[in-house]
């Protein structure tokens, strides 16, 4: 039984039933799920969580839907890998990589989607949809297929071919002539036309809650300790704000003893950096941008949660920084070479930002740092900076001719 209580407007605090609603019809502010934290705190234990399933549904008390009928492909409980070689390379002490490339569809999007589609089924919806830069589309199509729901996933026409192919095998991919922000506007209009559950439109309050679980897992996997500093990729800003909410909830329900402030830093590509720009300028509003970056999965020029992300970062003592496409590619190589983890450009953005903040002294050697790597490199093979050499003859001589001087 979910202990979600209601939806509440983040701006004016009006409350709403737990229906397919996403904005306050009074002030247009975003709606957020609230819970009966007292009852949760009375029942939740570390042992109970440890005895739960090896998925994010082990935290079902803090999710807005009942887990009994979850649309579940196994999202969550991805590895938290101690990255000593990476840390040494960049002059840091304790670095961990949360490897969310190892979700069912190889990105962190499986977290919000398993929650959103469970809500869609609970609401009796038979068709789901999303506005996506690729990873979300893949996840929605997969989870919809698993649950026997129809899906229409909307993506910009220019996203990476692998993401389109992988998703087309699972559901209806609608390519749109325009940017992600155009796709998002279209979906905000379609939600008025069709009786669909659009996961990041009318199911967004539930969908976004799924992202908290990456914070829950981080803390559980660190032995129920909070990290000192986390580096989070920022597209809409929802992941960053939900990571903050996740840490706060664990403190609130008594699952962590230490209450040290976690510094939360955001990472953006220079070619799409509306939140980083506002941070650097000390601005209180976010000017939308027209994105141009290889980090297409982060290419949201008008981030819905940008203001909230900015607020979270400032209050926590973190920063929002941006990195160039060259730095992104170098960081993909660095993570691959030091830790054996292959990421798509979004993870390159995060690791490049980690490198930058380490170099600038923003992150210090004595901090326990967690960096979120949110999508697999095989989704974007075209950006991986290697050029395989031609095949050799299948003989020792053939090997020695080409590689003899290198071994």
């Amino acid at each position, binding site marked *: 039984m979910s202990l979600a209580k209601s939806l509440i407007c983040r*701006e004016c605090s009006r409350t709403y039933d737990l229906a397919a609603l*996403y*904005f306050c*019809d*009074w*002030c*247009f*502010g*975003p*709606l957020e799920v609230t819970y009966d934290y007292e009852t949760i705190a009375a029942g939740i234990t570390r042992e109970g969580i440890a005895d739960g399933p090896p998925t994010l549904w082990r935290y079902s008390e803090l999710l807005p839907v009942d887990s009994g009928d979850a649309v579940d492909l196994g999202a969550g409980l991805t590895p938290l890998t101690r990255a000593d070689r990476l840390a040494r390379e960049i002059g840091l002490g304790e670095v961990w990589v949360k490897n969310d490339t190892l979700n069912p569809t190889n990105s962190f999007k499986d977290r919000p989607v398993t929650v959103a589609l469970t809500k869609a089924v609970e609401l009796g919806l038979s068709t789901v949809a999303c*506005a996506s830069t690729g990873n979300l589309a893949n996840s929605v199509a997969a989870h919809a297929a698993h649950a026997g729901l129809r899906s229409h996933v909307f993506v910009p026409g220019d996203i990476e071919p692998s993401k389109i192919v992988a998703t087309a095998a699972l559901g209806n991919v609608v390519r749109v002539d325009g940017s*992600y*922000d*155009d796709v*998002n*506007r279209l*979906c*905000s*209009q379609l939600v*008025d036309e069709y009786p669909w559950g*659009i996961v*990041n*439109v009318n199911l*967004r309050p539930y969908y*976004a809650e799924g992202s908290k679980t990456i914070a829950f897992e981080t803390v559980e996997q660190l032995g129920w300790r909070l990290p000192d500093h986390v580096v989070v990729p920022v*597209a*809409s*800003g*929802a*992941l960053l704000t939900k990571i903050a909410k996740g840490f706060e909830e664990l403190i609130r329900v008594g699952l962590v003893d230490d209450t040290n402030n976690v510094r939360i830093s955001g990472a953006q590509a220079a070619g799409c950096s509306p939140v980083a720009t506002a941070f650097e300028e000390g601005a209180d*509003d976010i*000017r*939308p941008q*027209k994105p141009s970056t290889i980090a297409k999965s982060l290419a*949201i020029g*008008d*981030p*819905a*949660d940008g*203001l909230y992300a900015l607020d979270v970062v400032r209050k926590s003592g973190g920063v929002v920084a941006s990195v160039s496409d060259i730095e992104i590619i170098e960081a993909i190589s660095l993570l691959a070479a030091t830790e054996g983890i292959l990421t798509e450009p979004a993870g390159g953005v995060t690791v490049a930002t980690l490198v930058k903040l380490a170099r600038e002294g923003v992150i210090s050697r004595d901090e326990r740092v967690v960096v979120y790597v949110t999508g697999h490199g095989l989704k974007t093979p075209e950006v991986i900076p290697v050029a395989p050499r031609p095949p050799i003859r299948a003989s020792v001589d053939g090997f020695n001719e080409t590689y003899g001087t290198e071994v």
Partner: protein
Amino acid sequence: MAATVRIPTSLRGLTDGNREVEVTHGPVAEVIGDLVERFPRLGERLVDEGGSPRRFVNIFVADEDIRFLDGVDTVVDDGVVVTILPAVAGG
């Protein structure tokens, strides 16, 4: 001479059920002003006390966000469609 404003479903109760409203064309500020004058209860939802669009309201003129144009000074030509949408979707 008129432009059209598309109203999101949740606000149609404030426009007598109309999904589209014909308004006098001109700058967005005047288009919104016209709308507010005719449907005062809609007005208090769309604009703040100072008359500016609320923070979480996005306005599009011919499918382009007015923040990439001239904001509320963007001129809406005759026959052009203005779309009002909540800003909190996506990601």
